[in-house]
C-alpha cells in the first residue's frame, strides 16, 4: 500500500477514497434509517416545543401539527413570571447539583469497597441493598416525611438535598461495584507499590477510571432529582420560595382545566438544562477509559 502510494499517489488516493466510501456505505444506510426513526422518536418533544408557542385552541385543533401559526411568546412570559419558573429553576439547579454530587460520591465510595474488599458485614449490606431494589416505594412517602420532620429537615433546600440523596437509586452502587470489581488487580498493586494510600488510590486512580459509570450515574441522578415531585413538594410546603420546577408545574393545572400552552412552555424551560447536560456528558461515553488508563 505505502509503496504504491509513493509511486502513483493520485490514482491510489482516489481508489482508497472510493473504497473507504464503499466501506462506509452500510454505515450511511444505517444512519439514514436511524434518521427516519429518530424523527418519530423526537416527535413528541418537537410537539411540546410547538405547543409552547401556540394558543390553547390551536393546540387541540391542529392535532399533530408542530409549527404554530404565529408564535405566542406570551406563554413563556407566563411561565417565567406568573409561575415563577425563573426562581424555581434556580432552586432546582442548586438542589440537583448538590444531590448529584452527594449521590455519585457516596455510590462510588460504597461501590468501591463492596467491589474490592471482602469484610464482615459485606453480605448483609448487599442483601439489604438488593432486597430494597425492587420494592414499590411510591407510598412510603409518609414515613419519609415523618423522619424528615423529626430530624428538622423540612423547609430547607439542605434538607431536601439530604432526603433526595438518601432515596436515590441503589442500583448506582451496584453499577460502581460491578465496574470496580473488573479493574485488574495489577493496577492496585502498582498503585500500592508507588506508595499510594487508600484515599489516594480511590480519588486519584479509581474514580477517574470510572468516568463512564460516573457519567451514567450523574445523568440518571440528575434526571431523577430534576423530576422528583413528592419530596420537593413536602419540603417546601411552608416555603413556596424554595419550590422546584416540577412542583411549580402544578400551577398550570386547575380544577377543570389545564393551561396547556403554559405547561408546554414550562416543560420546555425545564427540559433545556437536561438536554444541554446530556449533550455535554456524551463526550465521556465516547472517550471512555482507554485514555484514562494510559494516563
Amino acid at each position, binding site marked *: 500500500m505505502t509503496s504504491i502510494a509513493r509511486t502513483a499517489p493520485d490514482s491510489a488516493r482516489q481508489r482508497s477514497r472510493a473504497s473507504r466510501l464503499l466501506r462506509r456505505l452500510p454505515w450511511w444506510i444505517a444512519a439514514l434509517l436511524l434518521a427516519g426513526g429518530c424523527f418519530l422518536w423526537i416527535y413528541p418533544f418537537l410537539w411540546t416545543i410547538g405547543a409552547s408557542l401556540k394558543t390553547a385552541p390551536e393546540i387541540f385543533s391542529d392535532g399533530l401539527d408542530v409549527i404554530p401559526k404565529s408564535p405566542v411568546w406570551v406563554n413563556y412570559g407566563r411561565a417565567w413570571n406568573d409561575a415563577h419558573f425563573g426562581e424555581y429553576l434556580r432552586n432546582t439547579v442548586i438542589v440537583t447539583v448538590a444531590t448529584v454530587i452527594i449521590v455519585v460520591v457516596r455510590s462510588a465510595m460504597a461501590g468501591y469497597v463492596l467491589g474490592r474488599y471482602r469484610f464482615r458485614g459485606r453480605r448483609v449490606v448487599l442483601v439489604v441493598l438488593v432486597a430494597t431494589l425492587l420494592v414499590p416505594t411510591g407510598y412510603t*412517602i409518609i414515613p419519609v416525611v415523618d423522619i424528615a420532620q423529626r430530624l428538622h429537615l423540612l423547609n*430547607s433546600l439542605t434538607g431536601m438535598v439530604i432526603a433526595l440523596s438518601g432515596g436515590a437509586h441503589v442500583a448506582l452502587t451496584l453499577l460502581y461495584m460491578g465496574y470496580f470489581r473488573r479493574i485488574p488487580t495489577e493496577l492496585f498493586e502498582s498503585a500500592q507499590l508507588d506508595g499510594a494510600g487508600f484515599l489516594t488510590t480511590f480519588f486519584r486512580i479509581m474514580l477517574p477510571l470510572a468516568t463512564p459509570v460516573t457519567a451514567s450515574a450523574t445523568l440518571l441522578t440528575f434526571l431523577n432529582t430534576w423530576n422528583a415531585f413528592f419530596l420537593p413538594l413536602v419540603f417546601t410546603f*411552608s416555603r413556596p420560595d424554595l419550590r422546584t420546577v416540577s412542583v411549580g408545574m*402544578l400551577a398550570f393545572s386547575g*380544577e*377543570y382545566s389545564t393551561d396547556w400552552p403554559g405547561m408546554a412552555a414550562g416543560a420546555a424551560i425545564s427540559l433545556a438544562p437536561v438536554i444541554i447536560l446530556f449533550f455535554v456528558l456524551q463526550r465521556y461515553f465516547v472517550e471512555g477509559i482507554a485514555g484514562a488508563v494510559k494516563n
Partner: protein
Amino acid sequence: MVELNRRRFLQVSGSLAGLAALGACGSSGDSAARNYLTWWDHQGNQKSLHNKIFTAFARSSGGMKVQYTPRNAEKMGQALQLAKQSNQLPDVHTNAGLAIPVPELIKAGWVAPLDLDDAATARIRSSLLDGVHVFDGKVYSFPQFNFRTYSAATWFNRKLVAKAGLDPDQPPTTYDEFRAAVRKVGRSGGGVYGWVWNGGMTERMEDQVNMLAQAAGFEGGGGTLYRTGEIAYHADPYVTAIEFLVAMSRDRMLMPGATTLNDEIARSRWAAGSAGYFIDGPWCPGVIRQSFPTFADSLGVGPILLPQKGTIRCYAPPQGGTFWLSPTAAPKQRKAANTLLGDYFTTKEYFVDLAGWMPQPPLDLSAVDKSTAYPSWKKLVGWMAKQVFLAPSPVVGNIEVTKAEAESNDVKPGLGDIVQGALSGDVTNVRRALKDLSDKASAARENAVRTARARGAKVSLDDYAFPNWRPGTDFTSDRYHG
C-alpha cells in the same frame, strides 16, 4: 471487630447529628412568626377572583397578606395529608381529595370551628345544616355553591349544529332526539364527530350516570333508594341510561378515542371543533372563557337528557363547605381568616363576582342575573334551579352515620368502572354487573354499620331510609323527624 463496630457506631451517630444540625439551620414554619395567611385551594380557575379579594383584604384595616397556592385537585388530598403529617397545614384550605367524614376530620385535627361575626353569620345562616357545616353547635364552614346542580348538561357547538341543519335554539332533550342530532352532526362532514365525552374518567362518569338515572326516574341518589334505603344500581333507570350510552358508542356516534379522554382534553377537543356535542357540568363555560374565548359565540346548552319527554327531576345532597380553617393556625391568623371569610366570601358582591367565573351555580342564585356570565350558563343555572331538588342525607338525619361511613370500604368495580367496561365491551351484561355492585355495596354498608355499632356508634340501616320522602320536593331539615 469490636473496635470497628464502635467506630462505626460513632460515625453513624456523628453523621446523623450532622444531618440534624444541617437541617435545623433552614427550618422555620410555625405560623406565629408569620405575618401573612397561607391558603390552599384546588379551584385554580378562580385565581384572579381570589387575588382580587386578597389584595383588597391586605389593604383593609386589620387585613393581612395572603399567600395563595392553587393546587391540582387530584393531588390536593395527598398534599394535605403530607402537610398534616409534617405539621404544616395551611391556615385555610379546601378539602378536595379529603372525603373523610367531617367529624373524623375534627377529631383528627384537620379543621377548626369558625368564629364569624354576626353580620356574616346572618348572611349564610339559612344554608347551614347540622352534620354538614355545623357540628356540636359550632359553625365549621359554609357553602360557596348551590346544591341545585348536575354534572351532565348537554353542551353543544352552535355553529356545527347549525351547519348540520339543526336548530341551535332547540337542543335535544330526549335520548332519541340526542341520537338523531348526534348522527346528523357526525354526517355533516369535515371530519367532525357527533359527540365527545370524558370516557376515561370513571369517577366523573359515575356522577353523571347517577344524575342521568335520576332524570330517568330513579327515586334515589348514588344507587340508594331514598324511601327504603335499599341499594338498587340494577334498577331500570340505571340500566336504561347505561344502555343508551353504550348503544351510542357501539353505533360509532361517540368519538372513537373518547373512552380514554379525561374531561379537560375532551372539552378542549370539543372546543377546537372536533365534535358537536359534549356532556359536562356547569363549569364548562368558565373554562371556555379562560382558555378558548373565541369559542364563546358557539356555546350552546341543553338540559340533562331524558329517556322520553317529561319533567326533569334530579336530587342533590346539601353542598358541603368550601373553605376550612386549620386548628394549627395561630390566633393572629385565625382572626384574620375569620374576617376575610366573613367579610369577603359571604356577600352578595362576592356571589355576583363568583358567578362571573361560571363555576357551579353560586349559593345565592339571585346573584346570577347580575353577573357577567354567558347567557348559556345563566340559562342552565335557571333550569337547574327548577329541576334539582334537595335530597335527604343520612348524615343530616343522624350524625352518627359518619362513624359507619368511616368504616366503609370502597366497592370495586364501581359504577364508573362498569360504565367504562360497558363502553369498551368488557362488561357485556350490564344489569348483572349492576346487581353485583348493589349486592357488594349493601354488604359493605351492613358491615360498616355493624363495625361502627360494635364500637359504640348509635347507627342502624334504618338511617338510610326516608319513608316520608316525596318525588319533586326538597327534603328540608324539618322533614327528617316528621
